């Protein structure tokens, strides 16, 4: 018997086999989510067509198979979570989505087109932005400058025009600054606008990273453990911001997270991975009642 995720175990034992399993309302919802018709969630958000589809992805590092024949989709406007024990291949999956890794087999479809072999910046230009598990900000630069770098994909002038900061470059910066200020306002980081990122506490850095990703106005936002290392209050704030971003801008979100409570509350659908394989996929309730998922987290008794 092995036990790998005490958090999930606790959650499973507490209400994993709740009554809703037998309720018929749940089934109605499930049916709707299984079809590819656009629908409206209980809290009034519009879920649209498939935005990104992963088809039979296999990723190998030499002899190690990190991801093995996984397929799933992300629909427009939804919050999609990828969970799994340590080493399950979640971050690798996110790296495949963001174009950082190229799978040996399988196809990535984005907005109805098959993605060719792309560099990460080309993927970013397509409208995919991300944050990192270990914060990757420019520590010596101010919050404002950091968020401005998120607008890079929207800037057309070249390096010389920007260096001279004349005519088109100036106009462009003003426009982009305006967009950035709206995000600063949205995430309530006005007070640290001019503060160097290196001086900020961890929780705020995470928020700045979210701001930079948002500044790119992404179609798809990838969050790699947005709440790792945060206290309860910071987690609540971050959850609120993720929901607000999704609600206000209609941004599709795909996230990796360890905190099960957060994942189940936030997401519309969850993919569960274990040892590079997909062992579950569906609504939080479906996943929590899936025998394979329970086995993976709680272990199987030898009897």
């Amino acid at each position: 018997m092995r036990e790998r995720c005490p958090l999930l175990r606790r959650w499973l034992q507490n209400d994993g086999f709740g009554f809703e399993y037998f309720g018929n309302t749940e089934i109605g919802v499930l049916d709707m989510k299984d079809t590819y018709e656009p629908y409206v969630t209980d809290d009034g958000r519009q879920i649209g067509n498939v935005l990104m589809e992963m088809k039979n992805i296999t990723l190998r590092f030499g002899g190690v198979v990190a991801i093995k024949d996984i397929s799933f989709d992300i629909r427009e406007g939804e919050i999609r979570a990828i969970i799994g024990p340590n080493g399950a291949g979640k971050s690798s999956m996110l790296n495949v989505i963001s174009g950082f890794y190229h799978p040996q087999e399988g196809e990535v479809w984005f907005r109805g087109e098959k993605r060719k072999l792309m560099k990460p910046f080309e993927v970013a230009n397509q409208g995919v932005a991300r944050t990192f598990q270990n914060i990757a900000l420019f520590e010596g630069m101010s919050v404002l400058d950091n968020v401005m770098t998120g607008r890079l994909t929207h800037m057309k002038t070249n390096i010389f025009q920007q260096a001279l900061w004349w005519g088109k470059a100036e106009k462009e910066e003003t426009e982009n600054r305006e967009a950035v200020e709206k995000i600063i306002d949205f995430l309530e980081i006005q007070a640290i606008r001019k503060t160097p990122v290196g001086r900020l506490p961890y929780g705020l850095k995470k928020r700045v990273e979210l701001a930079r990703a948002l500044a790119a106005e992404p179609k798809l936002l990838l969050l790699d453990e947005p709440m790792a290392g945060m206290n309860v209050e910071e987690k609540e704030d971050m959850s609120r911001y993720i929901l607000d971003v999704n609600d206000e801008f209609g941004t599709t979100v795909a996230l990796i997270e360890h905190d099960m409570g957060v994942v189940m509350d936030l997401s519309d659908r969850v993919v569960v991975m274990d040892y590079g394989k997909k062992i579950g996929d569906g609504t939080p309730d479906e996943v929590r009642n899936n025998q394979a998922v329970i086995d993976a987290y709680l272990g199987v008794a030898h009897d």
Partner: protein
Amino acid sequence: MSNASAQAGSLVSIPHLLARNVAKYGDKAAYREKEFGIWQSWNWAESADEIRAIALGFLELGVSKGDFVAIIGRNRPALYWSMVATQMVGAIPVPLYQDAVAEEMSYVLEHCGARFVIVGDQEQVDKVIEVQETVKGIDHIIYHDRRGMRKYDHSKMNALADIQATGRAAHDRFDAELEKRWTSLGYDDICVMLYTSGTTGRPKGVVLSNRNIIETSKNSSEFDHLRADDEILAYLPMAWVGDFIFSIGQAYWTAFCVNCPESQDTMMTDLREIGPTYYFAPPRVFETQLTNVMIRMEDAGRIKKWMFNKGMSVARKIGPDLLDGKSAGLVDRIKYGLGNLFVYGPLKNTLGFSKVRVGYTAGEAIGPEIFDFYRSLGINLKQLYGQTEASVFITQQPDGQVRSDTVGVPSPDVEIKIADNGEVFYRSPGVFVEYYKNADSTASTKDAEGWVATGDAGFIEEGTGHLRIIDRAKDVGKMANGLLFAPKYVENKLKFYSNILEAVVFGSDQDYCTAFINIDLTAVGNWAERNNIAYGSYQELAGHSRVLDMIQSHVEEINTSVAQDDMLSGCQIHRFLVLHKELDADDGEMTRTRKVRRRIVEEKYSDLITALYDGSKTVSTVTEVTYEDGRKGAIKATLEIRDARTVPSAQKMAAE
């Protein structure tokens, strides 16, 4: 004089003043607000246009004369406009504290029977919706910030911008009605209703008439020679009478510009960017700023530290004198000039005080060191004494007669008398009309001749005519041995130490005085860092024996100084403890304006008080705390009780 009153005669309400400002100062800035990182500004003509649009929208919504309109949110031009628009349609604005929880709000909303509520953002909307479960009178909610509001049921809700758009579209239908409504406003009509924070019992709705507000604004503006090109930063709660007088009363009377910060957290940056010429802050703000300056100087390099200390010693010597216009030697003047160039100027600039011509503090006593620090920098900081019931001003300090231990001379047109028990009474044109729906309280506060009891005990200093306040009249008591007990007097002395944030002194009907102390986490935390004292939490730091040693030395110092005063020598502190949590408004221990609710503290911590008097060395306790989101928790702690050395009083020593 006759000219002035004739002018005042036609200016009988805030909307009248607005019309005059548009005519006289139309293209001068009236409001500024930092939004999306840029200061947006509106001149008087544009502001009037916005206000008019809101007022027309109100008429379309069906706001009637005499309706109460509650306004909840942080300081934003749109909310100030909403207040004036409310007055234009003959309704009464009731600003509420934005950080009040739904439960506190429901009492006020029920009491005034507000039909309309104007709020800043979604957070406030949620609270009002919660209130609506019990309070049925609210017809319509209007919000300013649209964020997160898309999915709410809008059958009884609107965005302020939509109200304005409707108002503008319907102006043909309502122009005449609006004109009729605001021109018919009279000098004795209600201008605003403000709820007092209530250190005791339920908040009371203080009704202030146009006469109260306009006369007071006129007098106080003239007293300090306020001008149309003055700038203020509106950052104090809109529900507080001071903000209403500064940001509406005086602003409309003198037509100066009201600047609203971007958010609560950016207040200091915004202060620096605006550089107000007229500034008000409670003592706590000045205290915090001074603490921050001192902490940063501790960490500064040697040269900077030397310059700062050298400069400040010169400033302390002659700064206040120069400010009062007294003569000083040439050498000193040159030294001060140099200091100004290298130290005070840059420091004032950092603090945002470069341009302050008139600065006020009030609400609590301010420490003499703190007060002198700012004055020695050349900032004209003064004290005033006021109340909601007086439309703020009772006494204030004229230029040239500024001291830290008095609250000044009676403001223009204010009469003062001291009752036999020491309570201060006043009578002025600013005296409130009544407490709304509370005739009993009105009668017990204001007598037939218009004298109002302040509830504060004080005396008028002979020679100077300045008023000195000792304490709340009802808190002044007798100890078991018959000596006078004035807790606030001692608490203030304690609070003047930067390490002590709050103190509560007990001793009424007891043999000796004892105290609860709250440490100031910023100052003590910094001290701990410098002295290599490790701590994991507020509670741990507060209970650290070296912190207790430090606090004990402070207590013993004030005992020595209290002993100097014959009348109050009995108030020396014999035993004290350092509380394991900060006193907090969310737990009901303080008012929203951060005044200690003595009776609630006494009840809540009765076990600790018992321990202070039964001679025990330690005491274990469990305290309930309320988090910001309303959840409750408990803190367990074992507190050490210390005995402090006391000094025999001067009187006794003479007798022996």
